[in-house]
């Protein structure tokens, strides 16, 4: 017998007490938990996102679309960044004011190549207010997972309020499971020394989030 046959046969013997007529979807799952915690206006949801991002040490900035290039230029300059990796589908205007070498992500770039880059600039798939989480789904303005991992400085632009959801239950239906997803809540951290939280281990140690309001807002 193959390992597969052995394991499945054991599972079936182990479940001899489950009534024959009971189907895989029959055991009830009560879903009376909340879809979202509390009721908030759209503005309050964005506010909560900003609060929770900051609570986990992400640096939060806000701007209108017209102000984005200048803001990004300022953030990169303040950091002293000279090279910035960008996903292939990123709006080129975002970097138009920055005096840096934009480096489109290429499939031939190795991890070591990326380690030599100062910063990475991306969009996101959505953001979750209650948990202060950004979700990247490797879309055109986000690129391969590794570009937001190896460089030490990540600037992520969130379009508010369109890309903001209230809660985890509101996030999942808007995400495609077949895409590789990265959920990011603040810069990397560890609690491995005396169960005390320290920020900054292997991922980008600085995470800056730009909440970009739609035209005419913010």
């Amino acid at each position, binding site marked *: 017998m193959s*390992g597969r046959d052995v394991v499945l046969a054991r599972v079936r013997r182990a479940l001899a007490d*489950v009534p024959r007529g009971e189907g895989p979807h029959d*055991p009830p799952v009560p879903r009376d938990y909340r879809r979202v*915690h509390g009721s908030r206006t759209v503005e309050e949801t964005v506010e909560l996102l900003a609060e929770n991002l900051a609570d986990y040490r992400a640096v939060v900035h806000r701007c209108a679309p017209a102000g984005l290039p200048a803001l990004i230029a300022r953030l990169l300059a303040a950091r002293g960044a000279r090279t910035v990796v960008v996903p292939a589908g990123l709006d080129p205007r975002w970097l138009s004011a920055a005096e840096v070498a934009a480096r489109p992500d290429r499939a031939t770039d190795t991890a070591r190549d990326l380690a030599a880059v100062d910063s990475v600039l991306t969009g996101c798939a959505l953001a979750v207010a209650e948990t202060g989480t950004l979700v990247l789904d490797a879309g055109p303005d986000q690129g391969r997972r590794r570009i937001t991992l190896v460089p030490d400085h990540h600037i992520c632009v969130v379009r508010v309020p369109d890309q903001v959801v209230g809660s985890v239950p509101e996030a999942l239906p808007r995400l495609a499971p077949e895409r590789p997803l990265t959920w990011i809540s603040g810069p990397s951290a560890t*609690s491995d020394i005396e169960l*005390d939280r*320290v920020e900054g281990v292997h991922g980008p140690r600085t995470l800056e989030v730009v909440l970009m309001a739609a035209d005419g807002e913010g």
Partner: protein
Amino acid sequence: MSRSFLGMPAFPRAAAVSTRDPRLRANLAHATHTIRDKRARAVAELDDWAQLRAAGAAVKDRTLRHLDHYLEQLEESVAAAGGHVHWAADADEANRIVTRLVRETGEREVVKVKSMATQEIGLNEALAEAGIRAYETDLAELIVQLGDDLPSHILVPAIHRNRGEIRDIFRREMGKWGRPAPEGLSDSPTELAEAARLHLREKFLTAKVGISGANFMVAETGTLVVVESEGNGRMCLTLPETLISVVGIEKTVPTWQDLEVFLQLLPRSSTAERMNPYTTTWTGTTDGDGPRAFHLVLLDNGRTDTLADAVGRQALRCIRCSACLNVCPVYERAGGHAYGSPYPGPIGAILTPQLRGMAGPLEESLPYASSLCGACYEVCPVAIDIPEVLVHLRERVVEGGPVTRRGARVVLKPAKGHAAERAAMRAAAWAFDHPGVLRGGMRLAARTRRLHPRRLPGPGRAWSDTRALPTVPAESFRDWWRRTRGDAGGSERGGVK
């Protein structure tokens, strides 16, 4: 290299040693109390915690009751997304599969994400025998690996080490494995984390094979989920060309939607955060992004034996958050190593004996490693009634009964070493069911009370070494009642008086 949990003594002996180690006691008390209050605050933020907990338990029960269905669905979904699925009935088979897969890449080094399943099967040791070096990349696992130590906590395997000890291990050992610790490394957690970052950076950038576990596997989509904090998981899951994930079969959940429950329960219970810094989900392979080859090794290794016990199977709901360890007064004083497996604390006390078929003195002692205070059940995010399972397993120890070992049903004999207790318990139960006899004994005890010793010999010393013995009163309650109220059965009056 590498110590192992093999041949560990029974719990009471190992625990007694730990209670006499003041540094260990201080490290554990500090760490568990730090996280305890934080968890309570993180959980209190959600007013539907009880509903989430009930849903989490129900999703896991649904999966477990139809595990064959969901495993086959998972296998099909993973394969459809370009992954390769392997099945391992036990640790040896899993180790053979992983070793073969690594060899086929031609690599001699792998990077690892912290994984309980690979700890459980001793994968690193098996790979070492095949000439393959496995680098642990989780900070705490790195501390354990560099210190040639054993893990003592599910979330924080090096919880028994304080910052000073960690600094010493880094200074002494890092150079033997790669980039040495920076000159003048202090014991500040920030500097220690930075030292780990620098040490592991080179390994991440060059590794061709990554090995992981997973927190969840979604049957309907074939998606695997790894929840982490440091970014070492993302490194291992996305940079190598080949990814091998070794995952216990009970980590399956039916649907994508089910993650909405667990991604709320797990971070708050585990690190006491609203959300952990990084979560990676992947489905098979993606062109141009991440590993080109993905292998999933589905691990049984005692899980189906556990599943066969209708009371004990709830232990398979466990999502490895470690909240039960952090609130357990026994764990806090005994330390993780006393539990003799990578699964310490209350969950280990019910999981280890079941995974190992109740075989051996350690496994027989673990169900008694609890005062049944119930703090573990209270915090468990999937409502595992750990006290209930502990008592159930105690019954297996003292009364014997059916268990399943490697798929075969065997009937256990009552464990050795409980004969005197068994006789005493039965005698007590018999006496309690025959109050006349009991009353006689009580009166005898009362009449001889001036002669009672202050300390007991033999097994009674376990009580009287540290605790005074209660004095036997001159008159029992029932004698007082009859003397003052006088309405009890007349036949009793003639008793021993």
